[in-house]
């Protein structure tokens, strides 16, 4: 095939030098063949199940009584949205709280790290390597490690907290029951573990971004009389704006769908305290076997995330235009 093309090409070459589409693997078929594997996988394993999920959300399938499956129209949606079953809004609230806290704090730590690692330091590569380790530790390991560290009887965190003694003032006199009680502390613990796992992503990205900011620009700002803060605010931040927008949006949406860290640490408990959306759908569908309610929540969650996705696409498109 290649041979016949070579023969015809020399005459058909356009002024720009790039030959037009041809038949066979040098034409539209080429594009089709290269896209095919991805298409097959995405349609078969992603889009087909989504349609199936949407259908299930209008039915009343429950595995405890699978034969009694009827069309219920929007009935499931009404029940879920009015919060009479499975605490949908509670999960929305915790998912967003978890995601906002994890993203914002991980971003700030990641930024601080990136700014420092961007200075001229001794053993810079070693420090950078150490800073990135949390990122490559498997989620399940992260959650068990923090579960152990937060243990109320022999955990190191309680030990450190209870030994704080500033001239007689003890902020935490007794060990905290991290995974008991009302569950607010369990939420803090999961967020803490997530932050530790996620900040290196920001460090990596922001460091790469910082290195694209020319030193001359910073020097010029210094000459103009800008202090460290002025240089940071007027040169560094504008230079990083695109990266900040993309990484925080990505991390926010990824954290909304966090499962491994929360499930391995708390199973969504105590009670429903750390029952984020993914944990909730897993519990509803697989532990309660209420298939249709789980499907309904899945569809609603998908619709909610589409709103954030819209903003993400706007950012990426804006980025493409300025490039």
């Amino acid at each position, binding site marked *: 095939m290649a041979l016949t093309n070579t023969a015809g090409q020399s005459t058909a*070459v356009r002024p720009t030098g790039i030959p037009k589409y041809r038949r066979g693997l040098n034409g539209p078929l080429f594009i089709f063949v290269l896209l095919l594997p991805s298409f097959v996988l995405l349609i078969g394993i992603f889009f087909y199940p989504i349609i199936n999920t949407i259908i299930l959300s209008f039915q009343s399938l429950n595995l405890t009584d699978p034969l009694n499956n009827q069309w219920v129209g929007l009935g499931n949606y009404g029940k879920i949205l009015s919060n009479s079953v499975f605490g949908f809004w509670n999960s929305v609230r915790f998912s967003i709280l978890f995601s906002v806290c994890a993203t914002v704090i991980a971003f700030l730590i990641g930024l601080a*790290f990136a700014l420092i690692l961007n200075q001229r330091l001794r053993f810079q590569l070693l420090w950078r390597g150490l*800073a990135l380790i949390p990122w490559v530790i498997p989620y399940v390991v992260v959650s068990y490690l923090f579960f152990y560290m937060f243990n109320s009887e022999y955990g*190191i965190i309680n030990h450190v907290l209870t030994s704080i003694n500033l001239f007689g003032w003890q902020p935490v006199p007794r060990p905290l029951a991290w995974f008991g009680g009302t569950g607010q502390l369990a939420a803090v613990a999961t967020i803490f573990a997530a932050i530790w796992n996620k900040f290196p992503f920001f460090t990596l990205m922001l460091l790469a971004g910082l290195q694209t900011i*020319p030193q001359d620009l910073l020097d010029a700002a210094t000459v103009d009389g800008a202090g460290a803060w002025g240089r940071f605010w007027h040169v560094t931040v504008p230079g990083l704006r695109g990266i900040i927008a993309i990484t925080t949006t990505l991390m926010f949406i990824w954290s909304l769908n966090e499962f491994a860290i929360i499930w391995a640490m708390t199973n969504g408990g105590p009670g429903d305290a750390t029952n984020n959306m993914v944990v909730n759908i897993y519990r509803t569908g697989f532990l309660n076997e209420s*298939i249709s309610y789980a499907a309904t929540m899945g569809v609603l969650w998908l619709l909610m995330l589409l709103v954030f996705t819209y903003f993400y696409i706007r950012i990426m498109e804006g980025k493409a235009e300025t490039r």
Partner: protein
Amino acid sequence: MSKHLSSKNKATNNLLPVSESAEAPTIAVRAGARMTKGVRTRRLKLSRVLIYIALAVLLIYAFFPTFWLLSTSIKPQLEAFQNPPTWWPHAPTLYSYQILPQDQQGFVQYFKNSLIVSIFTTFLTLLAATPAGYVLSRFKFRGARSLILIILATQMFPYVTILISLYTLFRQLHLLNTYPALILSFTTFSLPFSIWMVKGFCDTMPTDLEDAARVDGMGRVGVLWAIVLPIIIPGVVAVGFFAFLTSWNELLYALTLTSSPDMRTIPAGFVLTYIGEFQDRWPDMMAASVVVSLPIVALFTIFQKQIVSGLTAGAIKG
């Protein structure tokens, strides 16, 4: 804004040779014109000290949990339960590592499963995402823009939505409790991000070489294989690393699509084994944790350069 910056950047770049050799001291002197020399160096030193202090604090935060993981893994069983905890084991032992190969908790099986699933997922992802990303970067055809948008959006979809339907689908295909079920689903989940990264990476590559090869009569397949593939290797390596990391970490679908202990991957095996039956054996758990972290740490260390450049070019500049 960015245009403004880059033009300014170009302008200063032209001056670079001059400023680097002769102008630099002048600038520094001008900056500190009002200060005496002694004050300036002291201030510089102080800021250096502050930077190192901040670095130390951050490094303690970043490294302490890992240290705790390592330290617990070499503690004897009872010492892991001591209150107050010991910072470094009084009697360090490798016992917890030595019993791992005996496979009491199915650890070896989990590790093997994870390795098989992750390696196949990585190859399948590369096989599907590399050509797709290349096509979406280079060819303008009808529907290309909407395809790109769909892939960008799919990247953000909550995979939990299809939890039940995918389970049903694999049950109908008799694929539950098999490697293909895990490999196919993990590949699909890592595809959108991978395609996007390859596309972004291709976008940053000049097309001159490809055009030249086409003019010289090379077919499109040849161009892709001989010209494009070698120059996008960093992007491909980064994508491969991400696919591997994703499937090494995946818990939700590993729990859902497998029920037999023989088929569990590391995350599912850990959740179902250590927290149930072996809850009280922290040093064993930590030793197993260290071992399962090693493949990723090793891959990251080896390919760090490619991963960083692939990630930044793909996800950021794309």
